[in-house]
């Protein structure tokens, strides 16, 4: 087994579709970290995930997973990788028992006891057909399958979308447990930023096929702020400090990308902390500069 520093390394990856381009993206996910991959629908999250999983071929760039080349060392990577999609990709006629029989031969490190524990913990029926499962149950089954072969890297594509808050919270809790030993890493794409705010160590923000921000979540949140001021005051703010400006009847809210510095420069204004949701929203409108 190779020693590696980053569970995921994406360097200059480009993938062109008619009407959309994943444009020269680069980011890393360190070993032992949970990285939230955020962006609005159609931003390129799924294309990035499909590229790194080699579901689709990339036009240029390099991807390394667990320190290995994502195409050359595909077989080795797949044994140590688990993926959870937004929709359950299992046939409706199978039940949880069938899935264990299918996966135990495929994964060298498949552990039926661990699988059984997850099934019991999620209170999933062993013999009921998957077609009769609710959306929450289907997602839990997919997660149980993903976590039962000691995967070092877990990739999730909108896995918590469409689930109720109770199930989401339960699932997030399990992911936290899964990372306890420090050897495992998670890349979790979602547009539900509140989930990522709870568990992510890192955040990568993608928009229109480009990576806008990537780094540690706390640093990103701390460096950004929402400066509240009158509309007349906007002209006095250095454009370099501004991500975008949201105007309303009472004045303007300016997203600044260096909160500490802005606090000194515009000491007569109030700067509120920004959430990941705010950051995403203001960055999405960065081209317009002013929006309402």
């Amino acid at each position, binding site marked *: 087994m190779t020693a590696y520093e980053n569970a995921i390394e994406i360097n200059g990856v480009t993938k062109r579709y008619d009407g959309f381009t994943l444009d020269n993206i680069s980011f890393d996910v360190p070993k032992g970290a949970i990285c939230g991959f955020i962006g609005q629908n159609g931003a390129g999250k799924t294309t990035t995930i499909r590229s790194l999983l080699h579901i689709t*071929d990339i036009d240029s760039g390099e991807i390394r997973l667990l320190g290995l080349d994502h195409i050359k060392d595909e077989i080795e990577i797949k044994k140590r990788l688990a993926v959870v999609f937004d929709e359950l*990709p299992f046939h409706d006629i199978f039940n949880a028992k069938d899935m264990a029989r299918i996966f135990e031969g495929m994964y060298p490190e498949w552990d039926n006891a661990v699988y059984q524990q997850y099934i019991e913990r999620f209170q999933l029926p062993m013999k009921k057909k998957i077609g009769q499962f609710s959306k929450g149950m289907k997602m839990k089954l997919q997660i149980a399958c993903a976590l039962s072969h000691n995967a070092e890297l877990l990739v999730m594509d909108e896995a918590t979308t469409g689930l109720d808050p109770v199930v989401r919270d339960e699932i997030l809790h399990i992911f936290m447990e899964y990372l306890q030993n420090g050897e495992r890493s998670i890349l979790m794409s979602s547009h539900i930023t509140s989930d990522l705010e709870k568990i992510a160590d890192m955040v990568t923000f993608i928009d229109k096929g480009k990576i806008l921000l990537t780094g540690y979540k706390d640093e990103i949140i701390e460096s950004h702020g929402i400066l509240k001021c009158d509309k007349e005051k906007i002209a006095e703010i250095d454009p370099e400090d501004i991500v975008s400006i949201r105007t309303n009847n009472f004045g303007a809210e300016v997203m600044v990308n260096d909160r500490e510095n802005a606090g000194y420069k515009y000491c007569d204004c109030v700067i509120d902390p920004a959430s990941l949701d705010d950051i995403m929203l203001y960055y999405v409108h960065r081209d317009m500069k002013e929006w309402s």
Partner: protein
Amino acid sequence: MKLYRSLIYRELRLTRKRCFLMLILFLLLALLMLTPIMLGGFSEPAEGEDAPVEMILLFVGTVVLTGGFLAGTNNGLQKADISSGWKRYSFILPPTAKQQAVSDLLVKLFYILLFGLLSAAFAMIYSIMGDYNAFGLMLNIYLGAVCIVMLIDVVYSYIIMLAKSKKDLGVIGVAAFLGAGLIIKVVDLFTAGKDLLKGDNAAEQSAEGGALISDEAFNRFVTALGSGKTTLFVAAAFAVICALFFFVMWRSHERREP
């Protein structure tokens, strides 16, 4: 070995229902064809009726041909995998494209063997009851039928390979339907043209008594069909088609989404 067991288990579980329905159809047909024996129809053939040998060939041939068609036909697995999302999921699973193709071929061979054994059992019953050994002939008919249907399956699977979504499958389904219709029409026009060229000669050349084919021609045809050379040819064709099937499946599992 464990890996193949998993792959084959999945495929057999998914095709079980379809197989069960095909088995019922096959057994019903076999039962129908056994009715003359059960009613004692071969004990004393009535004057002016077909000889029992011809009847045996007709009944056994029908059942064996049906068995071959059912065994070689597409099992719908590729289509089901695309619809369920398993096809995409399989790209992140450890089995390689080659291993998955081997599993596809083994499952196909399993069904061919299953229906082959059932067809052989049926042929044996008739051989014993009618005191006529047609085993070689039946083997050739069975393998020939399997080859034809498998060849269609290979082409169909190759086309399916290009589909990545339910929408694509729908378009391909319509295109395949129209394509098949077009081929049938072309073949129909071709044979109609041949008949026109032949004129009344074809009718004149038919056997006496209004039969479509004379006894002598029929016997020649049966002898050729049951010969060792035909067995060799059909077996070789079967091996080539199996290789083609494996290759198409391999490519299908290997091919990434656009």
